[in-house]
């Protein structure tokens, strides 16, 4: 493990940017760990929420952005609901996720791919289509085979239609995505 | 003193020593950074803050004034802030009539422990004043010389004929004099047929000179305090009787010492309106009133005019033509009309239609004409100060001798503020003004706001306490002004 030179690594601009985009004052975090304690994703995180919060406080951009935890966050807001300092921790996590994507620091391609697959389906049909998302995702990542375990039951119960529903306004929806893509680039 | 040009505005704060000044100290101790505009004047209690200090600051060019005291129930002196709350709330409602944006003045409550709240109050108030920008200066505002000319319609029939009960009244007065009354205040004919003048009747002959009619304009209640300690009588119209009631309510005269004679009133005239219908300088020879018509002979010519044309404004909206309180009431009472939907006299109606800046210009124009004769003060039955008026002393030095619009207006504001909650609306101030300046509008603005906030009208109940001399712990009609 490297020794962190705090004076050099400290990136206050980064901290302020996170505060600005998330609308949260991170100086008020006193590292009690209640967010970590209640986080359903904590068991699979490689860096705990409270540690990520501390990294942001210290302006340690890499530590805050380069981790899988951001992508494993379930957005359940338990952390925000229980924070004694009224910090919307989930909003900070979401902000970091967006920043990581912008900076090209995505640490969990599979989840990113799942989201892409999901949004592509919406982009094309106007609605999400589970079988399509699944196929797209598995095609992209060659992963997700664990889900095959439940496929027979889902199919038996006719819970995964083979034909996606497509809306009349799908072009309108597609234009939303198009403008979004243009704006980003 | 110069304000840092462009950076700061002039904001004056009056803070009570115990709560808000301490709250400001607490904010300082916590290094709670605030805008630098505010200058704090320490006072013992928010109840010490005479609203006239606020007016003084605003008239003299402050861009904003803030008063802060202890929270209600928390006053170091038990009740000072309750008085402050009533007076300052009323002041805030009053300000627009002289063209000052009421947002430039605020009052609130901050305790000594509330450093953060104090910071928020200062920051928000300063931001508000900066958003409003520098206050308009009297020097820069264009003066207006137009004035209310509206002739409002009367809500009751007005008349000028001879009163049938006058002989009965005279007899009653003679009887009372015989029983030991020192004298009775009434009216007799003046130097011509349209001018009446007050008289203290002490003999039967003098009683015979008593007149009753449209020229009895003077409110004789004004003389009563002078006779305190002596048994005396007074003849009153309805409006005059309200003055008597208010004097009684404030213990300025005593009920045992004054005997009140009343008759139903059918309205009085505005002399300027009559004179305007006659050739300038024409000598008035006689005047006969029949029904609602006056026939005046002047310079050998006859002029006819109706009460609808020449009656005083206050008579047109009068709902109390009969004495509110009396010992002797002769003749039939005049029918009392329902209260009008709009009780504003022309002065206030005119002002209400103007913008804030136009109102400033209006008062500037009016006050340029004021000759500071203080006839308005002399005619006012509710002025208790008499020879001790603050405008005639340097101690305290509320007004200076400078002949400026601000000084003259400030005198009017002192008078209006002293009358707040006590003025019975007899409009004698305005009638007495030799320059015909509509000063009553200031008092009526206070009056209507007192009606709005305290549902109180002066001069109706001898047992009532004027609202600014009392308080309630909970004031349901005053909402808290929370700046934090």
């Amino acid at each position, binding site marked *: 493990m490297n020794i962190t030179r705090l004076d050099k690594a400290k990136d206050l601009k980064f901290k302020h940017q996170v505060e600005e985009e998330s609308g949260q004052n991170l100086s008020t975090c006193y590292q009690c760990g209640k967010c970590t*304690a209640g986080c359903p994703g904590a068991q699979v995180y490689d860096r705990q929420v409270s540690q990520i919060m501390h990294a942001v406080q210290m302006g340690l951009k890499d530590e805050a952005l380069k981790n899988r935890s951001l992508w494993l966050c379930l957005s359940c807001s338990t952390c925000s609901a229980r924070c004694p300092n009224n910090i919307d921790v989930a909003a900070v996590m979401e902000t970091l996720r967006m920043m990581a994507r912008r900076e090209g620091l995505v640490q969990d391609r599979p989840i990113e791919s799942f989201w892409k697959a999901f949004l592509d389906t919406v982009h094309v049909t106007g609605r999400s289509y589970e079988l399509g998302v699944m196929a797209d995702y598995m095609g992209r990542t060659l992963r997700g085979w664990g889900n095959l375990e439940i496929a027979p039951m889902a199919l038996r119960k006719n819970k995964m239609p083979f034909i996606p529903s497509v809306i009349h306004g799908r072009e309108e929806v597609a234009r939303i995505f198009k403008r979004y893509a243009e704006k980003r680039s | 003193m110069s304000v840092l040009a462009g950076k700061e505005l002039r904001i004056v704060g009056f803070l009570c020593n115990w709560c808000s000044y301490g709250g400001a100290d607490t904010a300082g101790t916590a290094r709670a950074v605030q805008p630098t505009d505010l200058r704090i*004047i320490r006072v013992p209690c928010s109840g010490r803050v005479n609203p006239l200090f606020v007016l003084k600051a605003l008239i003299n060019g402050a861009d904003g004034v803030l008063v802060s005291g202890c929270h209600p129930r928390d006053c170091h002196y038990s009740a000072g802030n309750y008085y402050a709350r009533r007076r300052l709330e009323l002041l805030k409602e009053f300000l627009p009539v002289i063209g000052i944006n009421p947002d430039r003045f605020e009052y609130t409550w901050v305790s000594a422990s509330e450093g953060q709240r104090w910071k928020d109050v200062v920051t928000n108030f300063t931001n508000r004043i900066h958003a409003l920008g520098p206050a308009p200066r009297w020097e820069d505002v264009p003066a207006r010389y137009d004035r209310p000319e509206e002739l409002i319609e009367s809500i009751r029939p007005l008349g000028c004929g001879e009163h049938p009960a006058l002989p009965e009244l005279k007899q009653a007065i003679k009887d009372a004099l015989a029983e030991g009354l020192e004298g009775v205040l009434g009216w007799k004919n003046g130097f011509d047929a349209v001018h009446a003048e007050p008289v203290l009747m002490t003999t039967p002959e003098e009683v015979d000179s008593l007149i009753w009619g449209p020229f009895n304009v003077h409110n004789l209640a004004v003389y009563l305090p002078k006779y305190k300690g002596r048994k005396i009588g007074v003849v009153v119209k309805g409006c005059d009787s309200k003055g008597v009631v208010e004097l009684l309510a404030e213990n*300025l005269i005593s009920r045992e010492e004054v005997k009140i004679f009343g008759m139903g009133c059918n309205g009085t005239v505005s002399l300027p309106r009559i004179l305007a219908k006659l050739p300038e300088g024409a000598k008035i020879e006689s005047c006969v009133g029949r029904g609602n018509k006056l026939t005046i002979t002047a310079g050998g010519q006859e002029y006819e005019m109706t009460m609808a044309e020449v009656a005083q404004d206050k008579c047109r909206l009068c709902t109390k033509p009969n004495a509110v309180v009396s010992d002797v009431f002769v003749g039939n009472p005049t029918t009392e009309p329902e209260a009008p939907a709009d009780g504003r006299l022309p002065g206030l109606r005119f002002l209400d239609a103007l913008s804030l800046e136009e109102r400033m210009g209006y008062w500037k124009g009016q006050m340029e004409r004021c000759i500071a004769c203080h006839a308005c003060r002399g005619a006012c039955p509710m002025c208790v100060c008499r020879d001790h008026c603050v405008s005639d002393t340097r*101690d305290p030095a509320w007004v200076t001798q400078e002949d400026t619009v601000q000084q003259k207006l400030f005198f009017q504001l002192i008078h209006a503020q002293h009358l707040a909650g006590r003025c019975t609306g007899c409009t004698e101030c305005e009638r007495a003004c030799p320059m015909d300046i509509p000063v009553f509008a200031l008092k009526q603005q206070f009056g209507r706001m007192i009606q709005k906030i305290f549902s109180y009208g002066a001069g109706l109940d001898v047992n009532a306490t004027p609202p600014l001399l009392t308080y309630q712990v909970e004031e349901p009609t005053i909402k808290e002004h929370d700046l934090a």
Partner: protein
Amino acid sequence: MKIGVFVCHCGSNIEATVDTATVAKIALTYPDVVFAEDTMYTCSEPGQENIVQAIKKHGLDGVVVASCSPRMHEPTFRRTVERAGLNRYMFEMANIREHVSWIGRDREANTNKAAELVRLAVEKLRRNTPLYAKQFDVTKRVLVIGGGVAGIQAALDAADSGIGVVMVERESTIGGKMAKLDKTFPTIDCSSCVLAPKMVDVAQNPNITLYAHSEVESISGFVGNFTVKIRKRATYVDWDKCTGCGTCTEKCPTKNVPDAFNEDISNCRAINIPFPQAIPKKATINPDYCRKIKEGKCGVCAKVCPTGAIVYDMVDEIVEEKVGAIIAATGYDLVDWTVYKEYGGGAYPDVITSLQYERMMSASGPTGGHIHRPSDGMEPKNIVFIQCVGSRDCSIGRPYCSGFCCMYTAKQAIMTKDHLPDSEAFVFYMDIRAPGKMYDEFTRRAQEEYGVEYIRGRVSAIQPTVRPDGKVGYIVRGADTLLGAPVEVDADMVVLAVGVEGSKGAGNLAEKLRISYDHFGFFMESHVKLRPVETNTAGVYLAGVCQGPKDIPASVAQGSAAAAKVMALFSKPKLENDPQVSVVDIKRCVACGKCIQVCPYQAIEEVEIRGQKKAHVIETVCQGCGVCTATCPQGAIQVAHFTDNQLLAEVNALCLS
């Protein structure tokens, strides 16, 4: 008039953001100012001497000091100018620290503002006149509100010095929270063994009048002469007759009354004496439960009472006492922790407060000192202590540290190990706050000698579950932030170290006392460092947790301190008033009586002077609020040093030109 101005650097406190030399230079241009200089520490001995010398050398008639808040040092500098032969009221302060240097960062704006504040002080001082205090009589008795350990200490110290004490206690016994504790840290002394003798002393001291089961109804008057109305709440037992034999309690058939003294973990009877050492040891009927009072049936206690003390139709009684000073010692209550739904919000029987745990561990408590969990009586093995419940938590509006929870949690963990050697104690903490003699050592002992597990992190939730053996368990989900990982304990019982706030009704009492209080119900002291016992209302003092969280030794110390303040106040034969009171100019007064009508103190009377009625101020009753001055239309009544002319001069200085 010759005025001298002294502008203080206050070290760098002011100088850092205010150019004091410039302020002094500008001050020299003000009317009547003949001398001005900036000084390093004006309040220091050389600083004060400098003022004395300047007064003598320049023949000054008055002095302005621009430094900190007058609430801090006005008395100091008044003494200084007096030493130099001036009247102490020929002095004014400009607050350029709290109101300028500490709240603004722009040096130019601050310097300008400071100069203007000096201008205001000069304008005011130019219109000051020498004032002289009047003397008045003082009632040498003190009211102590609250009979916890702080109030007891204050009462005993005052009574010992010969001062009459009136003690008012809301509960039916004195002793407060300390009486409920099992042991005290860091010595593990038995709490009641230490406290009970002091309680007995209160009962036996002839100088102390105790009103238990009573509350302060109203307070009027001022320092030296307060009139206090006390509501003696109905006890339904004639305490003059009650001997405290306890027969009534034994025979009372109503057994389902939540026992408040035992923090509701057990029940008591409808007629009850809270605990064996209660002072006064008298029975009280709880009218919400008594069958006789509620339904008219029963009457057992009246039948069995050997002295015939039971009075079912007793009503509240109001008594009046005259005192010269008041000590508030109303203590605290626990924060309402049931807002924490993630901890069960009060629904889980085995999640209890630290105070309930004290009663459970106390040998005189309902379980006789045996630790059994409430749900099923099982002796717990895993016990989790959660600290900072209701402390340091902005989300429930309690941002402060309650001060003594770290210490009692360590004590309770140690006692747990003592009672149940096989048990495991886990303490979830954020920081261990143990400043105090032998305190840190004590928390170390908990860990080193007793093996208490300290885990650094807050608990997110307590989740009850049923174990395979059918017993209820509580999964405590916390974080170990040092490990950087979520952790869990399957606990049998959870003890919450619940934070404290001002006792219920504190705000209401503060209003009666006319003192400030904060959002949390704590009373505001006059100065947080230098006047922690005084309040801003003369003659009202504070002792114990009612002023802010503190432990027993600190509460006792403040109790003694408050008593000492009262002794100092009463040490003079007469008190002196603050001469900044209202004065009537009889030439201007027209006796309209408006001032009499608005005066909150009935300090103005109507008198006849040479046959004319005039208003007259009773100087020792007037408190100087100035409401009369703001009311008088002629300006005939002026409150000294806050006269119309002084305030007008200040307004004009700011607004004209």
